[in-house]
């Protein structure tokens, strides 16, 4: 009997995309185009905004009655700062939308936008978290007595004693510099008002179409039923398209007001300047170790520069709180103390980007482990071995429960594949010849596939997490699954079809997965947080099992056998051990098809991996070349190994970019300097080495498909592996680098400092 899960079948998505027949938002024709006039300064008051005669312009004054974006969490003293969809009176970051113009073409819209006269009274901008925390700093939002939007702290009862009793106290302070997800497709929206029905259809590059609908309808005070949101083919999201774009709200408002169709296509400069940033985070950790290098206690301090406003739905708390909750990572840390804060500045809004805060917390912990290894006199792998969680379930000091996993086993596999002794010999020879090679390890576990309980625990007003799947088998035996998740490259149309096909005994080609259109799919939460296969997959499995049960019962009746003896496979329902069978299509035909639904809201599961990077640091140019990269990962059952590998490759590439290349830079006045791809450096094929991927499949009861989430692991572990490798390479020179990206300029400065 042919089974489909676990096989690297090629994707159903590919044929159209390869032919250039993909349907991306900007591909839709439109009679009108919108362009935003954006603030050229980081902080100040708008004195006037005047368009020339004949230019249709919208400002905040026109948007009376439109709500402000103000996502809320009811915990940790979170202050619900508000963002009006167009700046009203005050601007708070360079690039903030101040007005919108409408024209007949994109070219004309840009001319019109440039012709708008904006007058400001500039104010003092605070750009860094440090500046923003000073007592004399201007408060960026009204009604606040500081620029701290959220803060929290915890200390376990035995923490102080454990720190005091430690044989070794080791400190690490890391700096993660501001990132941008840089999807190849910029954001875009196309809002079409239907004069007959009064409904508006918004086609847009969203990862969460249902939530976009709910949010926009709420802000515009309109019935959700009057808004249809379609996420068509989406050219990468990585989280940047998960947060609500204020621009979409203005677009829908304008289409309705003018009773027409208007499109907005973000350009790359806007995308770098005003689409969501992330990971501008500083973390200091202190590890208390006993004489054998075992963790006694961990202290952490986290400051996240979250930008000027709060992203919807995650709020400005997401990065500092995730850091606070997940800092200990895969290590068995019994005593934990941590203080975390999110700080508002006059910079672009920070929102989740693949991995969210985890690349930064992994960097902190992995640098700590390597420093501790040196202080205590252990190999980096050994100190990890002594501290990785080995017994499951494991409850962390912050209350997370780690399910069955393989932290030490995957590390062992990665080490074997990297041939550490062979590398050390090569490293010695290279050093003798004046070359600096390094090997770096990072181990981590990753929270994936978590449902509404986790979001509720965060205190978010919006509690995403669950997924529904509506499944129908028609009278010819073909299956349609309507899902609430909304893919942007993950291959869900293929992987879900594999799960459903196996359950129903048919082939994946007979399964059509429908997603992205709020008119055609049940409410769902989209694709983010390494969840879609776990949760939509789980819901698909539940729905398919219900239909399977009906097929089996009907087959049993038709074949005069016991239901327990019926097997489904290869398109037939068969009495086990006999050749009595009936085609599944025939059963469906007899019963005029089946319909059922699946609902899945899991607590969540943790995948894990070890990454190993081998680098060479050229001290003449201060450039780092990553020679080889190894990933040993465990994300449970692999539904489609080819797609899993693809996710890991892409994540690792973004992680290497985070470690070496990508950085959003502001000057001290809040002017953004990185507004082109010549300044913001994404990796090309030359910068990404061959990536070797090894798999383990620990099947955990926490996820009914057996699959854990795989989307973000690459970005989480790779930066720390690369940074540790650089430090390993430069240890003979007495250099330590704890900042990413570790640019040539920073490596040079560190070399100078060490001299």
């Amino acid at each position, binding site marked *: 009997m042919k089974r489909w899960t676990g096989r690297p079948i090629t*994707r159903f998505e590919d044929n159209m995309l390869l032919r250039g027949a993909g349907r991306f938002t900007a591909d839709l024709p439109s009679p009108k185009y919108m362009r935003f006039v954006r603030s050229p300064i980081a902080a100040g008051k708008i004195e006037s905004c005047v368009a020339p005669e004949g230019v249709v312009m919208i400002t905040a004054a026109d948007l009376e009655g439109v709500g402000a974006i103000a996502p809320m969490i009811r915990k940790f003293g979170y202050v619900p700062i508000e963002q009006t969809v167009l700046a009203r009176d005050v601007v708070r970051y360079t690039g903030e939308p101040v007005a919108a113009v409408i024209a007949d073409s994109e070219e004309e819209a840009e001319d019109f936008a440039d012709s708008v006269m904006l007058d400001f009274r500039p104010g003092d901008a605070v750009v860094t978290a440090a500046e923003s925390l000073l007592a004399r700093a201007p408060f960026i939002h009204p009604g606040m007595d500081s620029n701290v939007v959220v803060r929290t702290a915890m200390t376990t009862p035995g923490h102080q004693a454990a720190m005091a009793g430690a044989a070794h106290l080791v400190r690490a302070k890391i700096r993660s510099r501001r990132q941008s*997800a840089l999807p190849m497709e910029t954001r875009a929206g196309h809002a079409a008002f239907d004069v007959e029905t009064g409904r508006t259809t918004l086609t847009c590059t969203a990862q969460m179409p249902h939530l976009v609908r709910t949010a926009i309808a709420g802000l515009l005070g309109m019935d959700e039923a009057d808004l249809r949101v379609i996420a068509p083919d989406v050219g990468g999201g990585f989280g940047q398209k998960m947060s609500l774009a204020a621009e979409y709200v203005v677009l829908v408002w304008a289409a309705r007001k003018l009773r027409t169709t208007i499109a907005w296509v973000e350009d790359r400069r806007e995308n770098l300047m005003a689409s969501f940033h992330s990971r501008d985070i500083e973390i200091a950790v202190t590890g208390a170790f006993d004489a054998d290098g075992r963790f006694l206690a961990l202290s952490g301090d986290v400051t996240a520069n979250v930008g000027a406003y709060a992203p919807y739905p995650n709020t400005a708390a997401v990065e500092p709180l995730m850091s606070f909750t997940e800092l200990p990572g895969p290590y068995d840390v019994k005593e934990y103390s941590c203080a975390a804060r999110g700080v508002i500045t006059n910079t672009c809004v920070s929102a989740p980007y693949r991995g969210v805060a985890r690349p930064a917390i992994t960097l902190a912990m992995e640098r700590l482990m390597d420093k501790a290894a040196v202080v205590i006199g252990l190999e980096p792998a050994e100190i990890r071995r002594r501290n990785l969680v080995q017994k499951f379930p494991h409850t962390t000091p912050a209350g997370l429960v780690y399910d069955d996993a393989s932290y030490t086993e995957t590390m062992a596999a990665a080490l074997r594949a990297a041939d550490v002794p062979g590398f050390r010999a090569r490293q010695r020879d290279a050093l003798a010849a004046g070359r600096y090679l390094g090997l770096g390890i990072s181990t981590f576990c990753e929270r994936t596939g978590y449902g509404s309980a986790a979001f509720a625990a965060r205190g978010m007003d919006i509690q995403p997490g669950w997924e529904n799947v509506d499944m129908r088998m028609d009278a010819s035996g073909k299956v349609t699954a309507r899902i609430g998740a909304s893919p942007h490259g993950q291959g869900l149309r293929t992987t879900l079809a594999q799960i459903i096909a196996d359950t129903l005994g048919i082939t994946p080609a007979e399964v059509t997965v429908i997603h992205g259109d709020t008119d055609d799919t049940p409410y769902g939460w989209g694709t983010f947080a390494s969840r879609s296969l776990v949760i939509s997959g789980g819901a698909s499995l539940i729905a398919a099992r219900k239909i399977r049960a009906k097929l089996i019962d009907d087959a049993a009746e038709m074949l005069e056998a016991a239901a327990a003896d019926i097997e489904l496979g290869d398109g037939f329902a068969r009495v086990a051990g006999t050749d009595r069978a009936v085609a599944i299509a025939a059963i469906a035909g007899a019963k005029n098809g089946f319909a059922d639904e699946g609902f899945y809201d899991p607590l969540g599961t943790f995948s894990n991996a070890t990454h190993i990077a081998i680098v060479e640091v050229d001290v003449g140019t201060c450039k780092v070349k990553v020679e080889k990269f190894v990933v040993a990962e465990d994300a449970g059952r692999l539904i489609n190994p080819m797609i899993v590998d693809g996710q890991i490759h892409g994540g690792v590439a973004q992680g290497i970019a985070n470690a070496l290349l990508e950085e959003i830079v502001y000057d001290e006045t809040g002017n953004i300097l990185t507004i082109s791809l010549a300044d913001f450096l994404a990796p090309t094929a030359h910068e990404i080495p061959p990536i070797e991927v090894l798999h383990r499949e620990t099947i955990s009861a926490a996820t009914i498909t057996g699959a854990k989430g795989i989307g973000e692991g690459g970005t989480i572990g790779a930066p720390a592996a690369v940074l540790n490798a650089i430090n390993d390479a430069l240890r003979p020179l007495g250099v330590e680098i704890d900042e990413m990206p570790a640019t040539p300029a920073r490596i040079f400065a560190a070399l100078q400092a060490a001299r």
Partner: protein
Amino acid sequence: MILDVNGHAYEVEVEPRRTLADALRKDCGLTGTHVGCEHGVCGACTVIVDGEAIRGCLMFAVQAEGAKIRTVEGLAGETLHVMQQEFERHHGLQCGFCTPGFLLLAVAALEQAPELNDAQLLDVLAANLCRCTGYQNIIKAVSAAARRMKEG
């Protein structure tokens, strides 16, 4: 003005400032060519003009009058082009946005120089950006396609 695209004549009327990429998308209705940066770095807009891969965002449509233009829509015949087949086989695409640019970049390079070795192919492929694949499978796909294209 006539634009000769994939062997068809498209009658278009465009301002001089309309780029070739935008004219293909909006005036010829061929939206397979994508716009990723508009300043010549990402290569998503790569098309083939008179046998050479070029950045469609850096050429004005008026400049392409009289040239033979090929876009991704012109690659497949009754079946997918060998390059497309290998991308599918090797999972060389995820979101698909950068894919047309890579396909044409690779096809043009191999049509001009079928003997390119893997190191030279890497140089070629470093011209374009992809955010999803980490390049691993793009390299495998193009390598495989190169072998097949050489065999004819």
